[in-house]
């Protein structure tokens, strides 16, 4: 047995196997150690896969030795390897954080179940990314969604139950739409293999059922990625989930959905079906702009910081969608770079907010007054992430916006450049709300004695903050991989 040949399947199987083992152990420490080992192993595997893809360009793995397109194929290309590395990397940072964090938020006898859910969610997200089979993708989507509903419902605030239920309903509708779309494609072509579908559909881009499938898949995946106006489930889910869960989902779940959308648009349907037969270009442009402006404006008026930054996530998803609507290498590069940059930024931000919750007991604006004085480091981290959300040079957010603006200029759309910059001003407004209460108000009398976050919370959070700054300066990893992936998606680069 040569392990390097089996990396694509081990990527999913290791976290997946750690979940039932954690349940069998029924002990929180043992479950934590086990899931941590699986998560770090998954991250190591994703790095190895990324290196392998860098050499060979594409890895295909036939499950059960049934050759594709008959069997289920796992397929890793430039885009998949980057998303795998992102998801498992974020998990590798968030899981150590979660141990100290759920101590305060979840009943101790449920901890081993939390770790099992986390492992399931991770394997689901990795599975969506690595699989080359449309139905397999749906199954993994359900695994990750069901486990994330359970994790959100574990939140301390009782409203987390309602939030999880709301997400359950919306997510299930989305999943239904996706499976209807996949079913239509299967009826038309008789295959479920994504690459094979891509070849067969080229001859039938004008067929009505194929376009219907495209519409169903678009709506279904848009629900999952919280594209405006299908984002209603997201703010509550992020706001009331346990801190570690908010950070993990904000940094990965919507990103993997964007990946699924890219996969279906460019590898399955192809540009002709998406951008010529249906007016997706205009539709996505309008929805992206609406998301950027409406969600940012709503964010300005939030009183709970977790909700504020959840709305900011909806706006940031708008930037990713905007990149897709350009249908160019630069546009897709912007989308993919933004996936990584925003994941790192938002992940760090939500981890820091979890530290604030641990210190101050909550993140409503009234409660965090003066947090800049009692928790100076944590507040400084939040400001750095905020600057990245605005897109200040030197932070990761700047790089994404730079490529978005380049893509807009390529199309000669000056007005779009203006709108992108204008929407950044809205981000300045909502980040300023935090800066104002954190630094220009005195802390509440009963909270003046609050301490800086413990190292177990600060270290993982600062890892992501450091990554935010690093990806703002050295873009060889992010932009390099992203432009390669974009070229591969559009069939330009090998």
């Amino acid at each position, binding site marked *: 047995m040569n392990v390097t040949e089996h990396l694509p399947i081990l990527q999913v199987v290791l976290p997946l196997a750690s979940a039932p083992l954690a349940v*069998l152990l029924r002990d929180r420490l043992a479950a934590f150690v086990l899931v941590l080992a699986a998560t770090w192993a998954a991250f190591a595997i994703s790095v190895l896969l990324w290196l392998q893809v860098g050499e060979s360009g594409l890895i295909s793995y036939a499950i*059960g030795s049934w050759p594709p397109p008959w069997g289920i194929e796992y397929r890793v290309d430039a885009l998949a390897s980057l998303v795998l590395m992102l998801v498992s990397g974020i998990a590798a940072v968030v899981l150590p954080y979660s141990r100290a964090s759920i101590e305060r938020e979840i009943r101790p006898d449920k901890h081993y179940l939390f770790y099992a859910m986390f492992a399931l969610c991770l394997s689901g997200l990795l599975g969506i990314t690595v699989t080359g089979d449309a139905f397999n993708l749906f199954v993994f989507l359900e695994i990750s969604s069901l486990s994330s509903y359970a994790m959100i419902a574990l939140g301390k605030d009782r409203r987390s139950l309602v939030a999880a239920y709301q997400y359950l309903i919306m997510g299930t509708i989305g999943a239904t739409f996706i499976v209807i779309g996949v079913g239509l494609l299967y009826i038309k072509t008789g295959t479920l293999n994504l690459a094979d579908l891509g070849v067969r559909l080229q001859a039938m881009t004008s067929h009505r059922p194929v376009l219907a499938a495209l519409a169903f898949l678009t709506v279904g995946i848009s629900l999952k990625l919280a594209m405006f106006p299908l984002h209603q489930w997201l703010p509550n889910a992020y706001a009331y989930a346990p801190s570690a869960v908010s950070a993990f989902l904000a940094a990965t779940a919507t990103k993997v959905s964007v990946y699924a959308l890219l996969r279906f648009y460019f590898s399955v349907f192809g540009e002709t079906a998406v951008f010529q037969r249906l007016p997706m270009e205009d539709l996505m442009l309008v929805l992206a702009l609406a998301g950027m402006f409406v969600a940012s404006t709503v964010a300005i008026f939030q009183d709970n910081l977790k909700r504020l930054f959840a709305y900011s996530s909806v706006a940031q998803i708008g930037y990713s969608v905007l990149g897709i609507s350009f249908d160019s290498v630069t546009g897709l590069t912007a989308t993919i770079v933004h996936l990584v940059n925003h994941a790192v930024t938002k992940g760090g931000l939500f981890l820091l907010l979890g530290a604030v919750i641990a210190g101050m007991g909550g993140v409503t604006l009234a409660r965090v007054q003066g947090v800049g004085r009692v928790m100076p480091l944590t507040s400084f981290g939040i400001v750095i992430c905020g600057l990245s959300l605005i897109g200040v040079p030197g932070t990761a957010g700047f790089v994404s916006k730079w490529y978005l603006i380049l893509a807009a200029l390529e199309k000669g759309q000056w007005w779009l450049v203006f709108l992108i910059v204008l929407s950044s001003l809205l981000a300045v407004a909502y980040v300023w709300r935090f800066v104002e209460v954190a630094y220009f108000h005195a802390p509440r009398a009963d909270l003046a004695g609050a301490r800086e976050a413990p190292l177990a919370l600060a270290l993982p959070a600062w890892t992501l903050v450091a990554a935010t700054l690093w990806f703002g300066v050295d873009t060889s990893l992010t932009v390099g991989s992203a432009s390669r992936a974009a070229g591969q998606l559009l069939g330009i680069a090998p």
Partner: protein
Amino acid sequence: MILRVIGKLLIPFILLFALYVQLHGDYGPGGGFQAGAIIAAAMVLYAMIYGLSTARRVFPDWLVESMIAGGVLLYLAVGLAGLYVGGNFLDYFVLDADPVTGQHRGIFWIELGVAITVCGVLLKIFYLFTQRGQDQ
């Protein structure tokens, strides 16, 4: 009284039928999912006749939870066995010198894993619904 006598008569046959569905899944309709559901139905019938507390002594919560996890692990173990013997993940061809026998062997254990997990999940759902309002 009547219920107890009939139940005693019926439950063994329900379990036997479940085994038939389980083992015949290779050749006809049936398989692990259906068999697991039938076994769970037999246990639910048992709980309805002899009372919930008796049922929870016979099938304690930790056993039900371990069944959920154990079935999935068995499934994964079959997949990894294929890897270990030198094939791909979930490769049944390599599980025996004769590839057809290998396929039979692979699906037998897979379906057993499915049956255990399905039975465990259904019982867990049954317990969760019936114990509502009692534990708090």
